[in-house]
């Protein structure tokens, strides 16, 4: 057995470099859209880890929302403006919340895991809606961030945020890839296959799920913080269950075959939504619904299975990349 050359890391580095270079010529609205796509793909990247263990969180908007509100609150309460610091706070807070909730959630599987995570996200939504100091249903505005002491304005600020998002996403995808290829990360598929064997190998299934859950939350927190900075506004809708549902949709659309899949899936989803909304402004959700139906029927492994088919020598192994 030889250690295969890792095509994922090469593709990741190449893709990130190309996007970074292209961003200097792309129009502002594309930069803005790409920032959203990549930031939301981070949430999906986290769901991918859980999905490998056979778990689907229908409440990932909880951590997405925690990341976004962490940015707003850090600005309001402490006057923090640095984008790096704000995103870091979002990540740490989301991970901390997941660390606590994980003690409970790691005991549940299947629909119980999904519904319990949904319940927690709706608790946050309810709290935000009722909280006048946090702007209730209107939310509040996020100030333009600074980047290591620099305070760019207008399109330059959007471009800097895009580069930050891109770097963070590339680093996250790389680290997630490494995690999935580690002894503990490989246990995700093992847990989906056979929990009894994992216990009898001597590892706690609950602890393995707990670790994955915290990592997924940290990624969702990063996504939420970046979207908040990009949009310049946050409101409780970010934590509503339709927001969670969207992440689940994109996870299924993407497939769990590779850490690159969420980025492709997220881009496809935004395109799909844009065209669907343009074509049928009042019934675009129906188009999304039909797409999901077709996807489950004909591409149950997500769009990544198409990519994997194009490059079979690279991605045949789905267990432990």
């Amino acid at each position, binding site marked *: *057995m030889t*250690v295969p050359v890792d095509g994922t890391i090469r593709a990741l580095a190449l893709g990130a470099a190309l996007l970074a270079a292209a961003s200097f010529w792309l129009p502002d609205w594309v930069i803005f859209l790409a920032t959203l796509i990549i930031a939301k793909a981070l949430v999906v990247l986290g769901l991918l880890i859980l999905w490998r263990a056979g778990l689907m969180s229908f409440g990932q908007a909880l951590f997405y929302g925690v990341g976004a509100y962490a940015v707003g609150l850090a600005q309001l309460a402490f006057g923090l403006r640095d984008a790096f610091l704000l995103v870091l706070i979002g990540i740490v807070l989301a991970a901390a919340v997941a660390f606590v909730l994980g003690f409970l959630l790691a005991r549940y599987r299947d629909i119980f895991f999904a519904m319990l995570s949904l319940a927690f996200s709706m608790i946050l939504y309810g709290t935000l809606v009722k909280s006048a100091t946090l702007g209730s249903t209107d939310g509040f505005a996020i100030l333009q961030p600074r980047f290591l002491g620099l305070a760019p304005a207008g399109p330059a600020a959007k471009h800097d945020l895009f580069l930050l998002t891109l770097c963070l996403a590339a680093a996250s995808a790389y*680290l997630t890839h*490494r*995690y999935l*290829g*580690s*002894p*503990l*990360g*490989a*246990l995700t*598929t*093992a847990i*989906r*296959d*056979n929990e*009894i*064997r*994992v*216990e*009898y*190998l*001597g*590892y*706690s299934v609950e602890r*393995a799920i707990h*670790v994955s859950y915290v*990592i997924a939350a940290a990624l969702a927190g990063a996504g939420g913080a970046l979207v908040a900075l990009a949009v310049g506004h946050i409101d409780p809708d970010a934590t509503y269950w339709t927001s969670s549902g969207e992440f689940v949709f994109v996870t299924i659309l993407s497939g769990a075959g590779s850490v690159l899949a969420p980025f492709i899936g997220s881009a496809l989803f935004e395109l799909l939504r844009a065209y669907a909304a343009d074509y049928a402004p009042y019934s675009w959700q129906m188009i999304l619904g039909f797409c999901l139906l077709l996807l489950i029927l004909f591409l149950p492994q997500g769009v990544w299975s198409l990519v994997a088919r194009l490059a079979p020598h690279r991605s045949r*192994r*789905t*267990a*432990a990349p």
Partner: protein
Amino acid sequence: MTALLEVISLNKAFGSVVAANDVTVTVADGERIGIIGANGAGKTSFVNMVTGYLKPSSGTIAFLGRDITKLPPRAVIAAGISRSFQVPQIFTSVTVADNLLIALGVAEGGAFPLWRKLRRPARLAAVAALLERFGIGAYRDQPAGLLPQGVRKLLDIAMATVRAPRLLLLDEPTSGISAEEKFAIMDVVMGAVDGARRAVMFVEHDLDIIARYATRVLAFAEGTIIAQGAPEAVIGDAQVKRYILGESPPLSRAAAAPP
């Protein structure tokens, strides 16, 4: 003789079904113990209690002088006891090699840092050695879910040995395997786990296998050990013949028959 495993007065009942009734067993290093008994006699329950899956209602289990009665399976495994299963417990969606790789990754311990590589050259070499030792190298890249039953069994047992356990419990290693293959599989298993400081207990129905591989036999019936000792002695025991082998004398069979 050092006692590896000391089980004292184990009791367990599921409602009115007695799974263990005052079971006391001592296992020494290097022993090969065959466990026989009819279905429902408490053989698997015994294995489940020793490995922490079932908690006994009373009694103690000590391993290397340490009380392990209340430990969960993963702590029992860490203490040095491993087991295989009657129905192989393997990771069906990944290849045979990856099953062993994952098992070795866990066995070597320590999950941190989280980006430590699973596919390290040394570990891949260990996988190759295991495949060779268990004679399943030809199936290396096959998904484990598509394996023939005999190979599944061997993979399951191979995964149980990755921690180099001092005591290995095999629950019916040859069940579901054709008569011609049984000896070959037991040769592979016993060869692979051979070593002076290691004991093996295996649940088995085939008396030829028991006679060939066991140094001592425990006979279970209704949760009790009704006979134990050298294989020939136990197989020849009158109670064993009656309860386990079904060779009841004509008179008692007539008496037991419903009117």
